[in-house]
């Protein structure tokens, strides 16, 4: 453990342990005195004009990789404040990565090392924004830091835009994933898998495959994992036969999933792979050329074809766990013919893939022929979407913050007009920057890009900071901590998260599980020692 780490954590622990959101006079007093003590201990920092104070908003992979690059480049000339709206760090590594992919979560060890570094201050359960639930505004963060890097990801979903989409029985894949991963926002998702025999998943990326695995694999697969207890109970209670339809507008060569995930679903989960019609595996001449040139495309097609061929002898229905690859099918309506308007099926249009997109890209074209896939649950797995933050330009069409190499632009670029100037001191990274694509490692590349922009701007950032002279109090983390303390906000420091982490791991161990997640914020805060 880095030597200065525990001391800093102890100080933050003291501050945040003494703070309550609904604080009375005494507690407020405590917060103030702690804030003052903290302010003093950082007095040298504030005076040290050569040190860059950076605030990273969102403690997921993109945020952590950015911190990694900044620490490596600046040495002791940087301090990073890392805030997250949840009391827990790691973003989608905690709430997105599938519970049966525990190895993928190993990266949290590296991230924890960064957060425990004395040059980093983690403040969880800090909501940034302008709304009534916010603890601090973006403006207040910017007043206290030379640079703010937005890395809060994509917490919404693309829509299908079809009749019947709104209402019970239609969920985004994100909502289901957050639910089974114990994200507090989805703790009370209205879902009853015991009433679901057939599921239509729109989309065939890796998130769709994660959902298919959760719904099809024997619940025993998830017993030893950190899948949330409330979800495990439902999977256990609803085990047995089920069918999942992966509905893709285009063909196997356009599928966004990757071979590892496909192979896992087809070979490890007791699944029988099906196509409703043989032509659903057919490919065009252009597709065949694409497969020849690209191993990953060839492999996806091979895996699906082999899976379907190998499952021929498995009888349908009953206890079978059946996975239908519904290629060349475009969702057109959610049918609500069940009791009380509940979902009874998904109406799809049969498509053809033609090279009619921009640059000859393959697009799905409707044929005018329709089919109905009977189902009780529809999952939309067609992409996440970023959400805007007040005071930050937002490209609503793409769901991202407009930027150039991570520098936030002052407006969304318009066609034919001069590109807008960058907003000094404001940066973006990860899904909010480039859209919701790629794997954890993609954020590494992305973080290098944004960090390089911050690094190139160092002199201008420091000059602007000197000009400001930090009128709002001390710079960086101590300044923010004092502000939050004065407001009675229950921020969770790294020490608080470690307490919660240890409690979750201990509870998991007792039940033979990797971790037993705490899924309600008040309980998280209680265990972390801030409420």
């Amino acid at each position, binding site marked *: 453990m880095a030597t200065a780490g525990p001391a800093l954590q102890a100080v933050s622990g003291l501050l945040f342990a003494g703070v309550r959101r609904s604080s009375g006079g005494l507690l407020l007093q405590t917060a103030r005195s702690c804030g003052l003590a903290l302010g003093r201990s950082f007095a040298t920092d504030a005076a040290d004009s050569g040190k860059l104070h950076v605030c990273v908003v969102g403690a997921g992979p993109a945020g952590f990789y950015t911190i990694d690059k900044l620490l490596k480049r600046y040495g002791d000339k940087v301090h990073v404040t890392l805030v997250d709206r949840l009391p827990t760090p790691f973003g989608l590594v905690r709430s997105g990565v599938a519970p049966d992919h525990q190895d*993928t979560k190993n990266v949290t060890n590296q991230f924890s090392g960064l957060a425990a570094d004395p040059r980093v201050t983690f403040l969880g359960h800090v909501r940034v924004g302008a709304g009534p639930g916010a603890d601090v505004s973006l403006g207040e963060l910017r007043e206290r830091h030379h640079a703010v890097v937005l890395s809060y990801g994509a917490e919404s979903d693309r829509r299908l835009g079809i009749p019947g989409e709104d209402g019970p029985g239609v969920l985004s894949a994100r909502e289901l994933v957050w639910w089974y991963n114990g994200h507090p926002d989805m703790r009370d998702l209205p879902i009853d898998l015991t009433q679901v025999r057939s599921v239509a998943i729109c989309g065939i990326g890796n998130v769709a495959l994660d959902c298919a695995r959760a719904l099809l694999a024997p619940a025993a697969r998830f017993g030893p994992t950190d899948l949330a207890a409330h979800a495990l109970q439902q999977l256990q209670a609803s085990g047995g036969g089920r069918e999942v339809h992966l509905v893709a507008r285009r063909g196997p060569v356009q599928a966004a999933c990757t071979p590892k995930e496909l192979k896992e679903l087809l070979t490890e989960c007791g699944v029988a792979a099906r196509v409703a019609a043989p032509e659903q595996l057919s490919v065009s001449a252009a597709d065949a050329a694409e497969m020849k040139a690209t191993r990953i495309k060839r492999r996806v097609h091979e895996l699906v074809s082999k899976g379907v061929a190998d499952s021929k002898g498995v009888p349908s229905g009953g206890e079978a766990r059946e996975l239908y690859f519904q290629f060349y099918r475009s969702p057109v309506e959610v049918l609500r013919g069940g009791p009380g308007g509940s979902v009874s099926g998904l109406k799809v249009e049969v498509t053809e893939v033609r090279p009619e997109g921009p640059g000859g890209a393959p697009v799905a074209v409707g044929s005018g022929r329709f089919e109905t896939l009977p189902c009780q649950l529809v999952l939309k797995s067609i992409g996440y979407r970023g959400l805007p933050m007040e005071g930050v330009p937002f490209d609503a069409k793409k769901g991202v913050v407009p930027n150039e190499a991570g520098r936030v632009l002052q407006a969304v670029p318009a066609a034919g007009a001069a590109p807008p100037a960058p907003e000094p001191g404001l940066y973006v990274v990860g899904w909010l920057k480039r859209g919701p694509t790629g794997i954890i490692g993609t954020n590494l590349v992305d973080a290098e890009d944004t960090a390089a922009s911050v690094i190139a701007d160092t002199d201008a950032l420091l000059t602007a900071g000197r000009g400001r002279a930090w009128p709002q109090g001390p710079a960086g983390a101590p300044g923010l901590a004092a502000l939050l303390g004065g407001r009675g906000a229950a921020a969770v420091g790294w020490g608080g998260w470690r307490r919660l982490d240890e409690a979750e791991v201990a509870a998991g161990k007792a039940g033979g599980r990797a971790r037993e997640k705490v899924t309600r914020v008040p309980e998280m805060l209680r265990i972390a020692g801030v409420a």
Partner: protein
Amino acid sequence: MLRLCAEALRARGLTAAAAGPSSIAAASYSGLLQSSWFHASASRHAAAADTEGQETITVTFIDKEGKEHTVKAPIGKSLLEVAHDNEIDLEGACEGSLACSTCHLIFEDEELYKKVPEATEDELDMLDLAFGLTDTSRLGCQVLAAKELDGARVRIPAASRNFYVDGHKPKPH
């Protein structure tokens, strides 16, 4: 056994620790598994200094900024472990469990690349997702130091156009 899955790799670390002679390497690797890079750096450094008594080859890592690091690689160690033992900035997000592609390395010499035992389908499946894939790409966690790889030069792909190649330092603007 030339390529090892995560479990086997872990088991190897533990076995080595129990056996004694390679305990320094094992300590360094279990540190890598259980704690952060920062946390483990001290023990890694110690391990780097002590390859005496072990059969080694020479490997040159070329980092993202074009800087060369020529180091001794004990036979049987993965290039990911060797990089971390020598504090070379090679990512290893999944800690060698073949669940990511962040330890992507590019062999500079195609002839030498061909001497590395062929990649498994599982490695290729991850490698296909790596940034800047080339015909001589491999995952560092899957390539074990072996005699025929003596003198190998491997490049850590530079990700960003903004990141400095060939020692170029961009001016602030």
